[in-house]
């Protein structure tokens, strides 16, 4: 166990704050006063504990970072090579000013973690983003018992339920095959970090045909490969010789590439979008995608409820997305739950 010493005056100041909850929301972000650190802060702070490398959770500018070792590569990409990033293995404990912290797999993306805090016998868990569905690109979600559970609620409505990922991957392959048969490219939009690699890994169970990737995905795919994740072969779109035909090819790109001049090179193509939001027909139609594949790296409604129950938490704070409906529903089911206002974006593209 590693122990970090705080200056004495700070320790004394903090020991008087015992009646405060272990985590509060400050202008900088989620703050653990007894430990004097922040979790996924949205402004620069002294010490930041990071759940995972997505942009709304890992922001630059803080003095020191602490994250799960499995996500080290991604955190360095996101925060810059100069950032001071310490890591812990999943489950490894560290005391920070009287608070014991540890990281536990969240099953969301490579290296994603829930953060467990223990202080004077009380345990809090900050879920970050998480999912329960199996994912070949990251360690599976681990249930961590706690007194207070801070859960995300990106898809916190009962209409959100996910089909088996393998069926979705088969659908994607069928779509690709159908477009190949008519000589069209298949441009599949997806979140550049996590979703793209998960699709490439799921497809690797079904085919070994290579796919093209947009520059925004390319280096992230490399980080996943370094971490030992098996995916279908990929090539960077911009490395393809001028004049090469993309007929029949699969191209993965971030949604922001849609409608840009970058798309012109693909000739005739169909577009698809892989996201939990595609569960609702209107979402796909509004954005003009030909196909929607329902694939999310977040927990669906049944898994949110299941996870809350699994943690056996006495108190649940809900952040990220449909916070009010989920908190309301939990309260009606006898759980002490309340929304927790944070500026996390709720993963508009995920």
């Amino acid at each position: 166990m590693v122990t970090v010493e705080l200056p004495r005056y700070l320790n004394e100041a903090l020991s008087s704050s015992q009646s405060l909850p272990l985590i509060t929301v400050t202008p900088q972000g989620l703050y653990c006063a007894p430990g004097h650190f922040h979790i996924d802060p949205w402004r620069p702070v002294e010490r930041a504990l990071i759940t995972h490398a997505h942009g709304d959770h890992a922001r630059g500018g803080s003095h020191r970072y602490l994250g799960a070792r499995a996500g080290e590569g991604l955190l360095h990409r996101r925060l810059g090579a100069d950032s001071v990033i310490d890591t812990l293995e999943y489950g490894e404990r560290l005391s920070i000013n009287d608070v014991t912290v540890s990281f536990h797999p969240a099953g969301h993306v490579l290296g994603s973690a829930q953060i467990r805090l223990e202080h004077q016998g009380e345990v809090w868990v900050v879920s970050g983003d998480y999912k329960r569905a199996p994912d070949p690109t990251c360690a599976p979600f681990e249930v961590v018992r706690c007194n207070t559970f801070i859960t995300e609620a990106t898809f916190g409505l009962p209409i959100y339920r996910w089909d088996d990922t393998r069926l979705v991957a088969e659908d994607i392959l069928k779509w690709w095959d159908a477009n190949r048969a008519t000589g069209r490219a298949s441009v599949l939009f997806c979140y550049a970090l996590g979703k793209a690699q998960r699709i490439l890994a799921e497809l690797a169970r079904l085919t070994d045909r290579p796919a093209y990737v947009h520059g925004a995905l390319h280096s992230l795919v490399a980080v996943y490969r370094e971490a030992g994740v098996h995916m279908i072969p990929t090539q960077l779109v911009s490395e393809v010789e001028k004049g090469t035909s993309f007929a029949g090819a699969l191209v993965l790109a971030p949604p922001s590439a849609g409608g840009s001049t970058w798309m012109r090179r693909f000739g005739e193509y169909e577009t698809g979008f892989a996201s939990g939001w595609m569960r609702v027909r209107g979402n796909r139609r509004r954005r003009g995608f030909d196909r929607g594949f329902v694939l999310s790296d977040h927990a669906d409604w049944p898994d949110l409820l299941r996870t809350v129950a699994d943690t056996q938490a006495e108190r649940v704070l809900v952040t990220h997305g449909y916070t009010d409906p989920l908190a309301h529903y939990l309260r009606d089911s006898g759980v002490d739950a309340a929304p927790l206002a944070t500026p996390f974006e709720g993963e508009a593209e995920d």
Partner: protein
Amino acid sequence: MRRLADLYEALDQTTSTNAKVDALVRYFQQAPPEDAAWALYFLTGQKLKRLLTTKLLVGWTQELTGIPGWLFEEVYASVGDLAEVIALLLDALERPAETEELPLSVWLEQRLLPLRNLDAAEQRERVVSWWKAMPRRELFLLNKMLTGELRVGVSATLVIRAVAQVAGLPPPSVAHRLMGTWTPTPAFFQQLVSPDVSDGHSSRPYPFYLASPLEQPPESLGDLADWQVEWKWDGIRGQLIRRQGGVYLWSRGEELITERFPEISEAAAALPEGTVLDGEVLAYEDGRPLPFALLQRRIGRQKLTPKVLAEAPAAFIVYDLLELGGKDVRELPLRERRAKLEALLKDRPRFPISPSVQAASWEELAKARGEARERNVEGFMLKRRDSAYLTGRKRGDWWKWKIDPFTVDAVLLYAHPGHGRRSSLYTDYTFAVWNGTELQPVTKAYSGLTDEEIGRLDRWIRAHTKEKYGPVRSVEPEQVFELHFEGIQASPRHKSGVALRFPRIARWRTDKKPQDADSLDTLKELLDARG
């Protein structure tokens, strides 16, 4: 039902026109005629009357899923489609791996339509049992049918193209056969795709070709010499058919109005066999159209007495020739159709051809457009001289260049007696609009009402007079009129601050209450908009 779900999904999943037609063709090739007829029914935008109230469906869903009312509302607000919300929520139910597949026609004829005759308990039992045994896509369609809102995102043109491809017929023939009313029976569908083109329906009209409103400057249409210009008559667009000894007059709304206009149908009996004309039914006297209101009143009459016929005599002003000697000539260029039309109607004064307006330039034409009002027309029709007679509203070849009057709904405030022959009647009126909570007089108007309306209004004025100022009477502010006018100017001489140009009464809005009248601010906004 599965086949329809596949089709729905295929149409929903592509923005490509060709892919949509391909999906439709696949469907119509595979579906048995009794199913295809129903699919066509929905694809052409027809709807079943709602079979069940949404309240029942929502209630059953909540019972089955345990979703409380507030959460259902929340979900509905985020999805916005009730049939979809229910289908998504019911995903929580355990379903058998293998689901029963029934043909669409069986679903409709043996399951859905009979629901109407059942009580709520039985309706619930049936619908819930179907829900529990259906995959989500089909459940979604079922819900759409139950709530009477099944709509498929595909245009009639594409449906016609697909059916035509399956049948090996030209699309206009299919469009033709889909006109009028039909019921979704296998016999109907078989007849629709039948290669036999001599199908007996002598009364069947061709689809109308509709002009699009001209939004760009007319100069952008190129050389005026390429265009045939006609007045845009304000009547009832119609198609006059003379086939196999019969005469049929269709309105654009696909209504048979032969009986309503005996003078037209009698005259049409003298047309040669196998003639179909496109034109406009107008109230028409001495070579001049009468106001549309006269025609409208005639349509409203139950009985066509000689008096009614004399008051609003009707004529069919001919625009175009669609069939000649039993041959469909719609593909010929307009200039050729027009020449044949002129030859055909040369000695038939009962069928005046809509004259073409002569002008040397677009500019001169724009000036002539000013005469439109005096002629009781709505503007110009611009038709490309080499255009075929297409179906529907296809942009590019036919434009309507309308003069839109300004309109205002105003309240009758004062009545003045008329002059000469009408000096014993109140025929001139002062109208007001709202200025805050007060009615502010804005204009006088006198033309536009029929004699019958003037008589009726005169009696009302006498019975609802508030005060008399010499010959002028103020009346209860109760009657609302739609006024049309040509322009508006700021005017310090008028208390209202505005003056209307050429105001006239367009309609007596007996359906409106004084509080529905417009405000002075609305009028002043026009002032700003027109500089």
